[in-house]
């Protein structure tokens, strides 16, 4: 039953991507005329998904080792500092960050990815640190006392115990970034932000809704699928 529930949002997403379905549904918002786009919806969605996936890969590759590094014994000050800095990432307004990134990185994917990575690091590093700190110190003492090396303690004890909370952080980062990535269209990165921006400039609510509905469905689908994945692994 649970598995079926997780497929509800992806199914709705596929339905809305079927040619003509979503524009047809939203036609009443534009005086009965279905909104038209230059690029097919499935293509915009794939580009969007690609942006988010690339950001998640970078976030995991940076965030997990960072959380591991700063939670080793004797690095309490560094750990607190890292947690604070990672938290700061999300307090900077998206547009300000992108505006600052464009002069350095130009338009397109690079500045958008930079923004998504910085936003995604907050939940991944935050959850990673919290999860690793929550590992029972007695279990760690026992592991050490029985002759596990630091690497063995990490692989056999710390990572398995931290995994659920760590995966939840990765899931949160991914889902947030589906929304954040729509801003990337303003920088020419493409994706589901395109119909939103075009709709805004043409004062076409239906076009805005095409992008918004698909982004929301994509976020809900990823949330459901990632949630399913982490449940099965436990």
């Amino acid at each position: 039953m649970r598995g079926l529930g997780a497929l509800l949002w992806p199914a709705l997403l596929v339905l809305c991507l079927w040619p003509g379905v979503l524009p047809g549904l939203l036609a009443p918002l534009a005086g009965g005329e279905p909104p038209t786009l230059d690029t097919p919806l499935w293509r915009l969605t794939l580009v969007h998904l690609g942006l988010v996936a690339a950001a998640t890969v970078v976030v995991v590759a940076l965030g997990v080792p960072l959380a591991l590094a700063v939670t080793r014994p004797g690095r309490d000050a560094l750990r607190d500092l890292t947690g604070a800095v990672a938290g700061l990432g999300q307090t900077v307004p998206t547009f300000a960050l992108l505006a600052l990134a464009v002069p350095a990185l130009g338009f397109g994917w690079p500045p958008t990815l930079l923004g998504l990575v910085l936003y995604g690091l907050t939940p991944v590093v935050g959850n990673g640190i919290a999860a690793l700190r929550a590992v029972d110190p007695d279990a760690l003492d026992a592991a050490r006392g029985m002759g596990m090396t630091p690497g063995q303690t990490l692989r056999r004890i710390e990572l398995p115990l931290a995994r659920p909370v760590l995966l939840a952080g990765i899931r949160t980062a991914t889902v947030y970034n589906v929304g954040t990535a729509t801003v990337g269209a303003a920088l020419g990165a493409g994706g589901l932000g395109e119909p939103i921006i075009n709709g805004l400039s043409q004062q076409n609510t239906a076009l805005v809704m095409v992008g918004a509905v698909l982004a929301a469905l994509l976020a809900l689908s990823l949330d459901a699928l990632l949630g399913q994945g982490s449940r099965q692994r436990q």
Partner: protein
Amino acid sequence: MIELQGVEKRYGNAPAVEDLTLTFPEGALCALLGPSGCGKTTTLRMINRLVEPSGGRVLLAGEDTRALRPEVLRRRIGYVIQHVGLFPHLTVAQNVATVPDLLGWDRQRTAARVDELLDLVGLDPGTYRDQRPAQLSGGQAQRVGVARALAADPPVLLMDEPFGALDPLAREWLQLAFRDIQRRLGTTVVMVTHDIDEALRLGDLVALMRGGRLVQFGSPDDLVLRPADPFVRQFLGEDAPLRQLAGQPLSAFVSPGDPAGLPVVDASLDAREALGVLLREGADALAVQDGGAPLGVVRWHDLRGSGRRP
């Protein structure tokens, strides 16, 4: 078996353990006793190098412990702590198999060893093998902790307040069960405790520490009857002889004699309970029976001193 030679530990300039020299003999259960902050846990942790000594030497079976990598050393030494520290994501069997896995034993040998150890600590392997630590009571968890520490058959076992977190009934049961296991295996045990009863009852030898120094090291009799200084006497308390009697079965004090007219007690009592009966009955001797069969007589003065340890 374990020799400490002039061992010391300093944190900055503050000494935690100073000039500690003592030998824990092979096969003996030695208690490290003392008030909190006396350095007993630090001493224990210097044996398996969870704490590195600042000076002196620790010898294990004549070999300097610094000659080995700490991990290799620790796999040869069992380790049990107060809050057990079972790995919550692993089954009971996987927990017990920790050190055999680290040593690379094959699957069959490990599985057989796990069942053997669960049996040894009184847990039915069929029932408990696949349970998770969260499903166990405190006493069961600590039994798994002991089984895990003994899994690779270490000659030496270090225990830090192993029974401290248990309720009195479970504690007493596990103390006696553990004592029995230890004798059977001949394991050399060093056990940290602040519980005087536990030290006097379980220890073959007791090392009393204070302020990072050894005050007295000897048998429970030595400490109770021949305290090295006033602190020993004060720390153990004036009722120390009674605490000591509590750990000993009455049968160890029985001698032949005429039981006629004496109050009758069963041999299942411990020596302190028998003393209580003597006081209550105003008698000088008791007739001891074992399930109705006369065993002999215990006299008032037999209860002074050590008795014959079982």
